[in-house]
């Protein structure tokens, strides 16, 4: 008998709210800074925009202690398996913010070297637009993520199913994540 098998009912309702509130209030980002967006992420962590007020006081460097991976910058084909490896090594529950258009859709660089969208490698929760997104945009993305955590599912592995209806039939919203395809593209 594990918590997973507990049916969501009246008794466990308030407990789950407490768990969700606790998770939402202290999400620690893993500093996965890649390119220009990483500089804006640093500026967001700086004194002027200060995401410490949302409980993100510290950027954990090891994935073991991080809850949120902000993919800040363009993901190259060589970096894709490393990104997937760090994502796998993060502890549950974990979330992913794809910061910037390069991470979300390949952005300006529609070519052989950039993975066109990091959701080909890791399931993404929130996409922050902008090149680079200004700190306000990143904070808006973080607040939407907090909203998702507050109303989201607490025990289910993230890519196993999006909103679990009470009658228990999970919708599979993302295809199982394909491995990053590393192949040259001769004309």
């Amino acid at each position, binding site marked *: 008998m594990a918590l997973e098998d507990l049916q969501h009912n009246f008794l466990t309702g308030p407990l789950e709210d407490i768990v969700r509130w606790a998770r939402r209030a202290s999400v620690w980002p893993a500093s996965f800074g890649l390119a220009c967006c990483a500089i804006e992420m640093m500026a967001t962590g*700086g*004194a002027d925009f200060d995401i410490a007020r949302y409980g993100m006081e510290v950027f954990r460097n090891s994935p073991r202690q991080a809850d949120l991976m902000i993919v800040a*910058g363009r993901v*190259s084909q060589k970096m894709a398996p490393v990104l997937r490896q760090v994502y796998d090594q993060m502890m549950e529950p974990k979330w992913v913010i794809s910061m910037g258009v390069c991470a979300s859709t390949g952005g300006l*660089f529609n*070519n052989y070297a950039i993975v066109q969208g990091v959701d080909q490698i890791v399931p993404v929760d929130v996409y922050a637009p902008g090149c680079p997104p200004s700190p306000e945009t990143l904070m808006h993305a973080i607040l939407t993520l907090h909203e998702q955590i507050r109303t989201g599912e607490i025990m289910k592995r993230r890519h196993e199913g999006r909103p679990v209806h009470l009658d228990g039939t999970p919708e599979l919203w993302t295809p199982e994540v394909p491995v990053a395809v590393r192949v040259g593209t001769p004309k």
Partner: protein
Amino acid sequence: MSEPIVRAAERLDILSAETSEGAQELQRRTATHVDELSREVGAVLRLDGLTLDPTSIDMDRRDDETMIINMGPSHPSTHGVLRLMLELDGEFVLRTKPVIGYLHTGMEKTGEELSYVQGATNVTRMDYLSPVINELCYSMAVEKLLDIEVPERAVWIRMLMSELNRISSHLVWMATNGMDLGASSMMIYGLRERELILAFFEKTAGLRLNLNYVRPGGVAADLPDGWQDDVLVICDTIFARTFEYDELLTGQPIFRNRMIGVAPLAAEEALALGVTGPLLRSTGVAWDLRRAMPYLAYDQVEFDVIVGTFGDNFDRYAIRLNEIRESIRIVRQCIDLMPSGDYRSQDPKVTPPPRARIGESMEALIHHFKLFTEGFQVPPGEVYTAVESPRGELGCYIVSDGTAKPYRLHVRAPSFVNLQAVSLLMRGGSMSDTITVISTIDPVMGEVDR
């Protein structure tokens, strides 16, 4: 699209095959060529008088005594996605090999598909700590090919913006260098000052970073009115704060022990490796492109070139700290000597007609439309221009074949060449010295991997 393959996260050998880079990695000593081995040990200069005697590398160091580890792509203090492979004997670093390419964006290929008008947006994302200076180098190359004249005011605006960008880049360096050495309050101060400059950039060019402001033919927009007092506020606050940083860092015993006498570089070694910028000046070679081969209006402003003597980490720190003050001096002179006039060359080939006239005349509309969709033709030829970026000589080599797109766009990135000196600087260092060496080389991975 091939149907998605489930990532076999269950098999460790598949995982290690995925992230391994084979021949690019640091191999065991028995498997490396002697030239490569001497390069990794970090003393490989063939120049007469500095040749390395191969006997000095103990080849028979048994492989099971040492440990090869990755200071890999996702590491807090590698300033981006640099992967440094180290062969360690306990705490001492025997061999170092940088493995790069984790941020390769194919920018030179993308540069060949964008027209000259769009090219600046691609180039500005290479060295994301000093975007204005990238655009400046690219625009000067295109202008040299077209041989058009940039009006006087545009020249001075470009100089003002690139010096402000140099200050903001050095401030980020001070912040991250302090953070790497444990002075995390330096991170907060460095980024706080930088926000002043970014606010001015946002006011002038509309963007904090990657601002597509310097374009072939001049600058995108004139300075906002009342810019003098904004810039004066920036200069006064940052100039006063540099003495605070001096107080905060220079006297600290930990900072001094980790910086003084660590990773010395000799002048001949630096020249042989093609190292430029603060790294070269720290060895005593007084080479600053703004002084040696002046471009823009650097010969009309008064500033000092800062040169170190010992060529170690502390000198590089002192050079960058004083270069912030020199740049502030230049910015003050720019405020006083800023000429008036139009901010963009009136040559119709390069500059679109002003918005007002588009409403009235049909030709202006066609000209505007053609310029932005097709871009302007550049006569065939090739050119190489170089500017002094905060990290060294930033060069832009363009080959044009007469069409509206550059045939070949190559950017000479200073960090790419300086980074190759890391195995030389790590000679006989300890594991903790790696952090300070990477930090004082100040590589920006976007520029290294292009």
